[in-house]
């Protein structure tokens, strides 16, 4: 049995199902991201873990013991709130020491551990400040220190970086990850930002409408999305309406592709823009490659890469090239080529 087990968690509100059915196993020391669009039930899941919301169904087990109905103050979960929730009437040091004071830790020991925790988040010397005298990034660090100093069984982070500017977010991402690694602390990281999920976690659970759509390593999720939703939500992808010919083979833009079609119904092919190469139309292709032709509509330079839009017989395909490669001429007829196994067929959504 894993260190942390969520099984069949459900939470309904009067007019909505916030969490429908969430089961998840987390190993000790592992960092797992709950990734999903806003409103899919991430925060509610985290709050059930922290004991701030009672689940209607399901169970939570921590280190072998059932904690489903345990009140929040007995759970020893380190919750970092999206708004940081620092106590405005207490100094930074008292904020960080709050959990230790509640645990009746000796004064000297509290002082020592607070200093240590503040050093860990690189805030030494600010201990007598009030939260409102700190920048957003510093407040975030205090919140993190306050949750870490109690040596929580699980660290719960709710969209903790979303209020920071892009640059700071990048720094904090790496800092939190390295602290998490060095302490070996089991962590659940809620985010709607895929880059955060991909870079900060050992595994990702993609959530969709109160359920977990797929759990896997960042690579799994990106390379082998289990559902159409995951393919659309994580990374970018061209969704290309395709058909079957008489022999049941996949046809896109009038060309047969060496790709297996999903059973029954209409379907789309998902191809990531970075996986497609642009070749002269005369160039032959090897086995196991998919190939269609089209005309270059335009190229846009985006800094670290170039986005090329190609129009074909039945739609458009976006291609992402590394900058520095020769740009295709606008209006040129080209061949688009990618490995057949980079093609992900999903049934068309009927919703």
């Amino acid at each position, binding site marked *: 049995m894993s260190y942390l087990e969520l099984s069949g968690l459900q939470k309904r509100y009067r007019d909505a199902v916030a969490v429908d059915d969430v089961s998840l196993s987390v190993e000790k020391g592992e960092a797992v991201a709950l990734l999903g669009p806003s409103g899919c039930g991430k925060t509610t899941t985290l709050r059930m873990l922290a004991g701030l919301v009672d689940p209607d169904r399901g169970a939570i087990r921590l280190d072998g013991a059932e904690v489903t109905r345990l009140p929040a103050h007995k759970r020893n979960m380190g919750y970092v709130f999206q708004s940081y929730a620092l106590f405005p009437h207490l100094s930074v040091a008292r904020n960080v020491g709050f959990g230790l004071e509640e645990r009746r830790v000796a004064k000297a020991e509290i002082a020592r551990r607070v200093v240590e925790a503040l050093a860990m988040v690189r805030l030494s010397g600010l201990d007598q400040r009030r939260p409102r005298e700190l920048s957003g990034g510093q407040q975030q660090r205090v919140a993190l220190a*306050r949750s870490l100093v109690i040596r929580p069984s699980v660290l719960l982070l709710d969209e903790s970086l979303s209020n920071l500017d892009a640059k700071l977010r990048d720094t904090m991402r790496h800092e939190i990850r390295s602290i998490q690694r060095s302490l070996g602390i089991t962590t659940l990281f809620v985010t709607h930002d895929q880059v955060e999920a991909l870079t900060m976690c050992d595994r990702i659970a993609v959530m969709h409408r109160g359920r977990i759509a797929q759990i896997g390593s960042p690579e799994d999720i990106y390379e082998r999305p289990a559902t159409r939703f995951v393919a659309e939500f994580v990374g970018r992808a061209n969704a290309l309406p395709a058909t079957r010919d008489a022999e049941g083979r996949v046809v896109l833009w009038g060309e047969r592709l060496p790709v297996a079609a999903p059973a029954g119904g209409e379907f789309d092919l998902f191809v990531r823009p970075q996986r497609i190469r642009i070749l002269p139309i005369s160039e032959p292709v090897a086995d196991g490659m998919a190939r269609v032709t089209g005309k270059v509509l335009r190229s846009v330079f985006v800094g670290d890469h170039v986005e090329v839009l190609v129009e074909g017989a039945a739609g458009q395909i976006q291609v992402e090239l590394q900058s520095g490669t020769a740009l295709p001429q606008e209006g040129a007829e080209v061949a688009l080529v990618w490995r057949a196994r980079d093609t992900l067929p999903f049934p068309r959504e009927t919703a």
Partner: protein
Amino acid sequence: MSDARLKWLLLPAGLFVLAVYAWPTLGLFRNAFNETGPTGAMVETWSLKTTAEVLADSFTFELTLNSLWLSLSATLLALALSYPVALFLFRTNSRFRGLLAVVAIMPMLISGVVRVFGWLAILGDRGLVNSLAQSFGLITAPMKLVFNWTGVTIGLAESIMPYMILALLAGFGQLDRTLEEASRSLGATPMRTFLRVTLPLSLPALALAAGLGFVLSMSAYITPKLLGGGRVFVLATEIFEQATTNTNWPVASVLAIYTLVLLLLLLAASNLAARGLKR
């Protein structure tokens, strides 16, 4: 509209205040320097004789203590009752929140006189409380709950509660559910969370409400007069007595100004205290 022209919007209210407030207040100050002649008629003059007499009178001192004590106990009682109600209203997600808030401040809409008769029906010798207590055999003779300080304190507390609830709701700015959740997730029991987070963050609101309740209690006249049954003497009742029954305008004016100064001093003190709290 430019700022210069904007100020004309204040003109009607300004004239109104001038007519019904500033003018009579000036009259009050003028009367305070007059004297009362041997016949009881007012003698127009400019002297501090009336002021000196009123301040030297030990009855003034007694009235002051009575007023302060009554206002303090009514305010504290009302605060203890209003705080939980305001906390509830502040937090509830109930659909009926708006309705509940209206119910809580409803007493404001009822005339003070009507309220007093309500209290007589509840607290009187044959009122609700005494009949219930007697029928349960808790007491043999009725308790004296009205026409004394007890009745006035209860009635006054009730009459200022709606104002205090509104003041509390307005002052709960810093209070945030998430902070209480943070406290609990850090290991604080609900009780400890209340003491360490909720209460400290409510202090500005409590100070605001207490100040308001105190001022309202100091100036309350109907409740001490009617529920006091002639046995409760405070500054407000005495001012009324002097102005109407005795038609002693100079003494009434001096007492009124004295009360005003007292309140201003208390307000200044509580302002200082509140600034200290915020720090």
